[in-house]
């Protein structure tokens, strides 16, 4: 037995430490801040790094066999079930990395300790969501994520952030009621809400299945509200205008992505109504996001809509019964999370109108080149990784016959075309030559005695770490392009546990399942 062999009996304790690290740090922040402000400022990042190291150490262990953990006595009301397989652990690690990436302090923070605590609770929600063993636990941690996000918004203390919180509370209540009724109905028809328990319901007689189908459909809708999928994302616009870029990055990236994976674990190839609901909501989100990108006036809104379009495509992939759909969805998901994190790093500075970025590419050529690379991969220009992921999704969609499948294929092609048009519009602005209007405006301002000077490049310039991260993501994309075979094999290993949890025999290509 090696030191990290996962036959070791203390593996569940390591999982527990991974789960409890962020909330314990959140609770310890205030007392530590009383003793040392500097200590409090590093406690959060240190705890996240510690959790990431624990997760990395657990990875070889869960590759041998998944670790299952039940917190609480058997039958206790709040028994929390966790299942740690390679996919769950990778997603937890990605969540930790994304929070660390967005862990920046502003000088005008009203109460940094409170902000750090909210970020740590958000991390708790994300890690718990990644490792959740059944739908009940997934829902609980999604709620925690949204609560923590609302707390982060409140701390912005601007009028628009407070108004945005009102929208979050309002819509979150609607999502909660849908999810709770759905969970309640599922709970009385299924022995458990684990993938195995729900699979047993899906394979049971159709007579008693009405309640479970209804319950699952309501649960998907409830979680879609929390994930901000169209048309249940009415709170998104106000939040997009109010939240700082780091919160937006997590809210529009990690939270919906992990929620979709939690749903994908229990979707039984369309045998529960949730798959159909998820597919419809997914394609509507992709369309709404693509057209939203086209119409966006400011860079954060552009990125929010980009996230919506991407998450919509991922939802469509997860709703498909076959392994190809799952594979494509996971490929899209990791590709999206990687690029989205780098784009939102850019949005820390690019908070204004898109027109403010006029001719920026001539002044920031490296940043612009990286942006072009990201855009090309997101749109699906061959041979970049995004192309393979999108092609896989389209091919898995094309496997199914019928008008509905063709409609989804056509809609997704339209989404890709509109996304490309939106990116071209942004590039056109960025690569525009200095406009005569700007010179005229300068002269006009000079005549008025106020010289309007183009300080744009220096103000829009990201910090050295941010630029380094963008370059790193660009290099990773290029490496993945060159090594697409091994990357696909690794991804396939992550898909296997997800497939194993789905109902066998659900993957006939003759229909939607």
């Amino acid at each position: 037995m090696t030191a990290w062999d996962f036959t070791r009996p203390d593996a569940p304790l390591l999982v527990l430490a991974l789960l409890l690290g962020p909330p314990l740090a959140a609770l310890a922040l205030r007392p530590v801040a009383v003793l040392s402000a500097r200590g409090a400022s590093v406690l959060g990042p240190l705890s996240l790094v510690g959790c990431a190291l624990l997760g990395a150490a657990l990875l070889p262990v869960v590759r041998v066999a998944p670790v299952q953990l039940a917190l609480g006595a058997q039958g206790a009301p709040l028994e929390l079930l966790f299942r740690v397989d390679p996919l769950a652990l990778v997603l937890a690690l990605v969540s930790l990395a994304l929070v660390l990436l967005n862990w920046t302090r502003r000088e005008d923070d009203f109460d940094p300790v409170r902000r750090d605590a909210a970020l740590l609770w958000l991390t708790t929600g994300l890690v718990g969501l990644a490792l959740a063993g059944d739908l009940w636990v997934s829902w609980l941690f999604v709620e925690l994520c949204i609560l923590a996000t609302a707390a982060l918004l409140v701390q912005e203390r601007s009028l628009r952030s407070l108004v945005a919180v009102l929208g979050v509370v309002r819509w979150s209540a609607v999502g909660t009621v849908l999810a709770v009724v759905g969970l309640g109905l599922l709970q009385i028809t299924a022995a458990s809400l684990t993938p195995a328990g729900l699979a047993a319901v899906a394979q049971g007689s159709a007579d008693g299945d009405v309640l479970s189908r209804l319950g699952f459909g309501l649960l998907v809708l409830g979680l879609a509200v929390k994930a901000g999928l169209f048309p249940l994302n009415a709170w998104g616009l106000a939040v997009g205008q109010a939240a700082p870029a780091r919160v937006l990055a997590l809210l529009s990236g990690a939270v919906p992505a992990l929620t979709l994976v939690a749903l994908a674990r229990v979707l039984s190839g369309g045998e529960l109504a949730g798959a159909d609901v998820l597919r419809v909501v997914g394609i509507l989100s992709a369309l709404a996001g693509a057209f939203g990108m086209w119409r966006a006036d400011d860079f954060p809104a552009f990125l929010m809509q980009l996230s919506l379009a991407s998450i919509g495509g991922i939802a469509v992939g997860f709703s498909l019964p076959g392994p190809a759909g799952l594979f494509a969805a996971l490929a899209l998901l990791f590709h999206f999370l990687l690029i989205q994190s780098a784009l939102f790093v850019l949005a820390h500075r690019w908070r204004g109108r898109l027109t403010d970025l006029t001719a920026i590419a001539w002044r920031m050529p490296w940043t612009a080149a990286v942006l072009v690379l990201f855009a090309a991969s997101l749109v699906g220009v061959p041979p970049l990784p995004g192309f393979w992921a999108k092609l896989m999704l389209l091919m898995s969609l094309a496997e199914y016959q019928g008008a509905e499948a063709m409609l989804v294929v056509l809609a997704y092609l339209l989404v890709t075309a509109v996304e490309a048009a939106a990116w071209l519009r942004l590039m056109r602005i960025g690569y525009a030559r200095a406009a005569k209007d700007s010179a005229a405006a300068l002269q006009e301002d000079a005549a008025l005695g106020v010289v309007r000077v183009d300080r744009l490049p220096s103000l829009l310039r990201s910090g050295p770490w941010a630029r380094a991260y963008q370059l790193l993501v660009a290099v990773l994309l290029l490496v993945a392009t060159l090594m697409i075979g091994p990357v696909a094999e690794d991804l396939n290993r992550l898909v296997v546990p997800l497939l194993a949890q789905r109902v066998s025999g659900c993957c006939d290509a003759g229909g939607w399942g």
Partner: protein
Amino acid sequence: MFISGLVLGVPVVLISLGGVGLLWLRDPLRWLTAMVLIQAGGLLLLVELAALHAGIGPWPSEALTLFGLHLQPVAAAAEGSMARLHGLGLAVILLGLAWQVMLVAVLLVLKQRTGALQPSRLAALAAAEWQAILGEESPAKAKVPTDAKASTSATGEHS
């Protein structure tokens, strides 16, 4: 049968009223009432589902039949399911309270800052603040008395 339908109908009506209220009403203060209605309805529904699961009387099954639904009882793991329903109820109470406290706190702060809670006024103020952010604090509009010229040297990036 009528009583059965009524018993199951009450939480459904409460939840529906609360849901419609949340989506339809524009006054944030009334959202609080809608949230309380939803919470009460959700709890009542969970209690009834737990009763149904525990096999307390035939009325829940009859009530479901009224709505054209048929329940297939799950004999196995009934204790686990009951515990989970109780857990769900507990989570509804705690989360409902958390959201209501947050709503009240935000409304109090907004009342303090704007003096009114009319939705149209709040929306207008928030929009004005956003326009100000875009228009005045936008880097492109920064005004400094200098004759610096735009160049790659200002950004640290070189072609």
